[in-house]
C-alpha cells in the first residue's frame, strides 16, 4: 500500500511539471464564474449611408445593423442551454458618430442606455423579434426554406462624423472597470465595425493602448470589420496589408490584433486560410466566424 501511495504522489509532481512547460495565453476557461467580454463598436457616421461593396441598393449602415444583430443572436444561441442562457459573456454595443458626433451605448429597446450587460439580459430583452427565412439542408442533398426568429437590438443609424478616437477612449474606461473585476478571465474582445474613415485623428495610438490592457491570460484583442463601398472581394483574417484596397483598410489592418495561436488553429479547422501573421481583420465579409473561435466547451466539428 505504501508503495502505491508513493506512486500516486510521484505522478502529481510530474504532471505539475508537464503543465508548467505548456502554459499558454488565451487558454482561460470561459464559464459563468469566469466570463469574458465582447464590446462591439459601431460606426454610425453619415458615410455609412453609402452603398456597401458596390451594391447600390445596399447601405453600409443597414449591413452593420444586420451584422451586429446577427452577432448578438449568435452569441446568445451559443450560450443558450435548454430554456436558459448561461452568462458566459458580458456584452456591450457602443455607437459612435450619431447625434453631435456622440459616443455611447447603442442598444435600442429595454437595454437603451446600458454599456455592458450579461448575455442573458440581451437574450431576454430584444427591441423586437422579426421572422426571416434562411436556406437549410433538407438531408437529401437539397435546400429548403426555414423560418427563423431574428431578434433586433440595434437599428440602422447614419449621421454626422466618425469620432473613432473618442469611441476607443470610451471603450478603454469600460474595459478598465471590467478588468478590475475579472483580472484572470479570458481577455475581452473589441470588435470595431466601420467604413474606416476616422474624423477625429488617427486611432492608431489609442488602439495600441486598448491592446495593451490585459488579464492574466493575455492582452485585450481588437478586431476590425471594414465595410467598404469598394467592389473588392471579401477578405477574412488578412495576414498582410499589401493587397488591401485602400488606406483605411490598411490602417484598420495595422490596428487589428494578431489572432492568438489557439484561434488560428480553430480557424484552420473551420477551413479558413490562416498563417501565423493572420489578424482579426475582416473586409466586406461576414464577421460571425470571429465569435465562433471562442470555446465554451465542446463544439461539434460537424455542427453548422
Amino acid at each position: 500500500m505504501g508503495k502505491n501511495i508513493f506512486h500516486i504522489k510521484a505522478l502529481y509532481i510530474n504532471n505539475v511539471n508537464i503543465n508548467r512547460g505548456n502554459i499558454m495565453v488565451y487558454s482561460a476557461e470561459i464559464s459563468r464564474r469566469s466570463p469574458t467580454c465582447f464590446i462591439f463598436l459601431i460606426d454610425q457616421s453619415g458615410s455609412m449611408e453609402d452603398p456597401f461593396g458596390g451594391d447600390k441598393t445596399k447601405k453600409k449602415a443597414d449591413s452593420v445593423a444586420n451584422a451586429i444583430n446577427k452577432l448578438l443572436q449568435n452569441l446568445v444561441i451559443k450560450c443558450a442551454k435548454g430554456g436558459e442562457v448561461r452568462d458566459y459573456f458580458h456584452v456591450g454595443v457602443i455607437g459612435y458618430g450619431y447625434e453631435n458626433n456622440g459616443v455611447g451605448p447603442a442598444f435600442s429597446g429595454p437595454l437603451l442606455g446600458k454599456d455592458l450587460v450579461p448575455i442573458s439580459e440581451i437574450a431576454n430583452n430584444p427591441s423586437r423579434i422579426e421572422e426571416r427565412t434562411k436556406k437549410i439542408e433538407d438531408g437529401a442533398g437539397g435546400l429548403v426554406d426555414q423560418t427563423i426568429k431574428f431578434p433586433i437590438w440595434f437599428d440602422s443609424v447614419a449621421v454626422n462624423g466618425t469620432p473613432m478616437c473618442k469611441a476607443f477612449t470610451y471603450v478603454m474606461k469600460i474595459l478598465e472597470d471590467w478588468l478590475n473585476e475579472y483580472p484572470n478571465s479570458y481577455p475581452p474582445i473589441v470588435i470595431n465595425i466601420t467604413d474606416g474613415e476616422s474624423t477625429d485623428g488617427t486611432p492608431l495610438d489609442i488602439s495600441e493602448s486598448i491592446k495593451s490592457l490585459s488579464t492574466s491570460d493575455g492582452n485585450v484583442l481588437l478586431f476590425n470589420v471594414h465595410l467598404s463601398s469598394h467592389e473588392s472581394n471579401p477578405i477574412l483574417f488578412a495576414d498582410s496589408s499589401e493587397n488591401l484596397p485602400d488606406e483605411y483598410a490598411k490602417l484598420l489592418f495595422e490596428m487589428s490584433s494578431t489572432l492568438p495561436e489557439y484561434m488560428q488553429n480553430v480557424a484552420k479547422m473551420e477551413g479558413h486560410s490562416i498563417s501565423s501573421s493572420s489578424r482579426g481583420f475582416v473586409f466586406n465579409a461576414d464577421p460571425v466566424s470571429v465569435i465562433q473561435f471562442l470555446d465554451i466547451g465542446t463544439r461539434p466539428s460537424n455542427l453548422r
Partner: protein
Amino acid sequence: MIIYANVLWLQKDGYSKEEYEDSYCPKRISKKKFRYLEGDYFHFAIADGATETSFSKIWANILVHAYCSGKFESENLISNFIQIQKKWKNQLSKKSLPWYAEEKLKMGAYSSLLGVSIFKQDNDHPSYGTARIVAMGDSCVFLVRDNDLVYSFPIKESKEFNNRPMLLPSINNSQQIIDLLVKEKIELKKNDQFFLMTDAMACWFLKTYEDGHKPWIIINHFKTKKSFISYISKLRKDGDLKNDDITLLTIKIT
C-alpha cells in the same frame, strides 16, 4: 468468464450535478463496488453530450440506452438510428420555449458515443471471449493486459484531443454519420481490464502513459467515490485535467 464493472462520474467544477451532461449504461453498475454481471454477453456504453448544444444530456442518455439494447449491433442500423433521433425529438418539452431555445433546438443535440460489447467464449470461438467496440467522437476505451496498455481506441495519442470532435447529431445526416462510426473487434484474455472514459480523463490517461507512467494503477486505487473526487479535484486545480464532465467506466474480466 466473470465480469466486474464499476462507474465513477463527476460534473464540471463550478457546475451542479444536474448539469452533468455525460451518460453511461447500464445504470445498475452505478454502485460503489464492482458488480458481477451474468449473461452470455454484456453491453456497456458511455456518451458525452456537447456543451455547445442544447438538450445534449437527453441525447447522450438515449444513445447509451440504445447501444445497450443492441440497436447499434443490428443490420438495420440506419433505420434504428433514425428512430433513435425521433426519440430525442419526442422527449423534448412541448411547452413554448423562448426564441433562443427554439433556434438552438433546430441545431439539434450532439454527443460522443463509445460502446463496448463483450461476448463470452462459445464453441465456434477458440479465444477467451471477444469484445466489439463502436465509437464516434472523443470518448475512449483503453485495454490493459499484463499491466501494460495494449489498446487505445479511437484516439491513440493525447495530442489528438481538441474541442471540436465529430459527434453524433440528433437531427439529419443519419446516413453520412453512421458511415463514420468506427468499429473494432478484439480477442480477450483472462484478467483483461477495459477503461472507458470521456475526453478530459482520456486525455489525462494518455498523457500520463506517454510520460512513462501507468495511470490504470491510480484508477484501480479509487476505492470510493470520495477518493476519486479528491484526485480529480487535485488534477483540475493543478491544471493537469481540463474542467469537463468526467465519466470513468471500468470493466474487469476474470
